């Protein structure tokens, strides 16, 4: 009975975070400027890291999923910094209405 309640609670957390990802996805698809899209992607990747740790807790395999989350965070850092550098160099010459 108690185990069941714990599992239901973690499933609730998983579903809530997944619904929040939908909000960020709206910002990525709709965002008026390209910088809004990058910020939305950053928010989605934060949610993905949290989701990985929660999934690990549900399956009681945290030690494995936490490693995946760490790798994902580092890859996300490199990708986001590269995109930001590119946009900064491009934005100096082009217009930013798109």
């Amino acid at each position, binding site marked *: 009975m108690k185990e069941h309640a714990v599992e239901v609670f973690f499933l609730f957390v998983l579903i809530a975070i997944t619904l929040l990802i939908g909000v960020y996805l709206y910002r990525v698809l709709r965002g008026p400027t390209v910088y809004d899209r990058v910020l939305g992607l950053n928010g989605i990747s934060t949610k993905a890291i949290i989701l990985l740790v929660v999934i690990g807790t549900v399956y009681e395999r945290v030690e494995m999923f*936490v490693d995946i989350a760490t790798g994902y*965070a580092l890859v996300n*850092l490199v990708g986001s910094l590269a995109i930001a550098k590119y*946009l900064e160099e491009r934005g100096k010459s082009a217009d930013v209405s798109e």
Partner: protein
Amino acid sequence: MSLNEIPELMHFLISAGLILVGLFFLLVAAVGVLRLPDVFTRSHAVSLTDSLGAFFLLGGLALYEGFSANLAKILIVLVLLYLLNPVIAHATVRAAHRSGLKPWSRENR
């Protein structure tokens, strides 16, 4: 329920409370991302509020794990998030500012 189950229940309830507080902050961040007017204000919702929500949520999960190697691993992810989130938000906002995007104000919307 016997008497020696009560500390276990307290342990779960405290970590569940931390996780729910974290979910609340993540919800506030999502509302900010939806409602705020431009990049510079939205970056506050994404970097500040999101980091606080992740802090509470991962802290609750680490407390739920108890005293083990998993706690240290979850804390490593927590510290990484706290270091990397502001760096990414700063780089993006700096790119937006350098490329001539004007901050939102009441006059020029």
